[in-house]
């Protein structure tokens, strides 16, 4: 295990140090005093690598990441896990806008809330299956263009008006599944999604992820499951058929 004091380091310096350590075979790195440095873990490969961040990492944390695990002890900013391929990001605070943008695999677990456009254009392919779980609430445009994977919002905290999700939920969504613990009003939905009841089969599929989420943050799974979930699914995987004249 190596500890790096990130105070005063430019992101380029910090990330170069991290890459060098990983190249040399280091598996566990703790970063202290992180203050807004971008691109931590960007493009990082290797399943057994763990980076713990004390402080607030900057934008594009874990972008293009391919296998590592990143634990953030406080809040993360925008673009967390942008286009991530594999790996896991655990955030003990809030995460900013476009969390999980275009991610194709791996998991993002956020204990607190997340910003706008969470899970936008997530997609899955074969063994790559992205999972995002947000403990609190999220802002507008959740799951926009979502094409695959699993997104869960638990609403353990609600926004100013008592909502778990913002407006335009699932606009342009054409694949994947979205679960919301609590309720969502019809007017909050984009026109491509419909509300479904959660079946036993659905529960069995999502409970392992929820259980992992609870383990990571010390929540009680039973408590979380006490409240009902709704499921949102696109009613077609071809929202834009019959659009063109041939």
């Amino acid at each position: 295990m190596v500890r790096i004091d990130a105070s005063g380091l430019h992101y380029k310096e910090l990330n170069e140090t991290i890459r060098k350590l990983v190249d040399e075979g280091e598996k566990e790195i703790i970063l202290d005093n992180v203050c807004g440095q971008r691109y931590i873990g960007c493009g990082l490969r290797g399943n057994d690598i763990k980076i713990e961040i004390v402080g607030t990492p900057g934008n594009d944390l874990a972008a293009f990441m391919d296998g590592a695990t990143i634990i953030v002890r406080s809040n993360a900013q925008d673009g967390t896990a942008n286009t991530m391929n594999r790996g896991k990001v655990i955030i003990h605070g809030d995460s900013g806008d476009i969390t999980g943008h275009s991610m194709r695999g791996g998991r993002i677990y956020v204990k607190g809330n997340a910003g706008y456009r969470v899970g936008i254009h997530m997609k899955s392919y074969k063994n790559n299956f992205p999972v995002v779980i947000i403990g609190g609430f999220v802002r507008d445009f959740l799951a926009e263009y979502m094409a695959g994977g699993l997104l869960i919002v638990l609403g353990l905290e609600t926004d100013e008006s008592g909502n778990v999700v913002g407006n335009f939920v699932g606009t342009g969504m054409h694949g994947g599944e979205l679960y919301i613990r609590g309720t969502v009003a019809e007017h909050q939905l984009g026109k491509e999604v419909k509300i479904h009841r959660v079946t036993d089969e659905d529960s069995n599929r999502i409970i392992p992820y929820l259980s992992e989420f609870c383990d990571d943050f010390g929540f009680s799974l039973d408590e979380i499951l006490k409240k009902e979930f709704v499921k949102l699914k696109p009613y077609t995987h071809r929202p834009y058929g019959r659009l063109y004249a041939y």
Partner: protein
Amino acid sequence: MAKRRAPSEFIVERDEYKCIRCLACVRMCSYEANFYDERENMVFTDNSKCVGCHFCEAICPTDAIRVIHNPLAIKQNAHWTGEVVSDIIKQAETGGVLLASMGNDKQHFSYFDRIILNASQVTNPSIDPLREPMEIRTFIGRKPESVDLEVENGSVLLKTEITPQLKLEVPIMFSAMSYGSISLNACKSLAKAAQMMGTFFNTGEGGLHKDLRQYGANMIVQCASGRFGVDMEYLNAGAAIEIKIGQGAKPGIGGHLPGEKVTEPISETRMIPVGTDAISPAPHHDIYSIEDLRQLIYALKEATRYEKPVGVKISAVHNVAPIASGIVRAGADFVVIDGIRGGTGATPKVIRDNVGIPIELAIAVVDQRLRDEGIRHLASIVVAGGIRNSADVIKAIALGADAVYIGTAALVSLGCHLCQKCYTGKCNWGIATQDPKLVKRLNPEIGARRAANLLRAWALEIKEMLGGMGINAIESLRGNRDQLRGVGLSEYELKLLGIKPAGEAW
């Protein structure tokens, strides 16, 4: 009510005397326009299905077929042209957005044709490229402010650290065409030709087919708003990365590969399930500003350890000069500008034909702006959009470009007949199709040779023209607008292009 059908654009004429009833035209037409009547022992054509690709004409062993225009299909009218009327009929039938392929085909956008080149006479000698060295090698990437050298035992060492560059033996690259928009054999042809000629091809935004990996040293990979097929392996596979913001044929709009075209092999490179729509959103949703663009540029540089140049491709729009300046300041190593004539596999026709500005004007204003701001050296300018021949290349460079991208011209070298029906996926020439039967018609070895021949020919012509101007390095031509003159252009257009009218001396 009697329904009005869009009239046939073409007529397939068959010389009955020459036709030997081999039925090749019947079997080979992917649009099923030709058919055989056994009772009559005659081959006929349903003209309404003909797209004018001339494939049957080309393969007819007895030269019995002629595909001709149907000029009087619609009563001639300068304003309500046949195309306009046919489009209205199609939309009345379907209620849909008209699709189009290839680039804008309207004549009034070409400035290249109204720009002419200079040559030396008496006062400065011209150079004969057959006997004297002529340098057309071009480097794409950020150039340093100044160069520090150290002389040690007679050899010169470069002390300045140079950021990664692409080395082009000819200032012409193959522009972004994804596997999916064109066939694998077409991709292979261009990849191999790029390798043969020491230049680059571009994967487009559809990910990377494993057969193209071996051409990595001559490949630029694209990262577009859909992020299809973008993972670390992909980003590391090529020699450079290009962030695609826009393309000339569809500025400001996203892309949409319909589910029926996402077959097993396409699904593999795009990394999405078979049969789902591949939607590229109009903007990158992580880029809403120049600052955000900088963030992605540096995310890609961080991810690939600053080992590759990262460029940004935009379509030429009204504000292209300040946007390009922003892109350079955001840290791009090269800026790609695609003009209004830029091609595509599929785009709404109304956008292709009406949005964007001609590339000639865009090159001139971008080059000027970057020079005025003192940042021209920070990025190379690569231009695209209807480059047809070596003259267009050399004019583009004299207006201020470092290199050009060609798409349509490259496809024509592979056999494309510009029927502009790429979006149907039924290309008879094996280029814009994924149908294995059709793809086989394009031999990648022959294709590569033909595309490489084209570049070789253009390179020779460029050297001839340079020599004629008394210039022996393409670098001395870049932005050297004194070598250009305009014909039939307004004073203001000349000012924007930064050139004098023909007839005016230095």
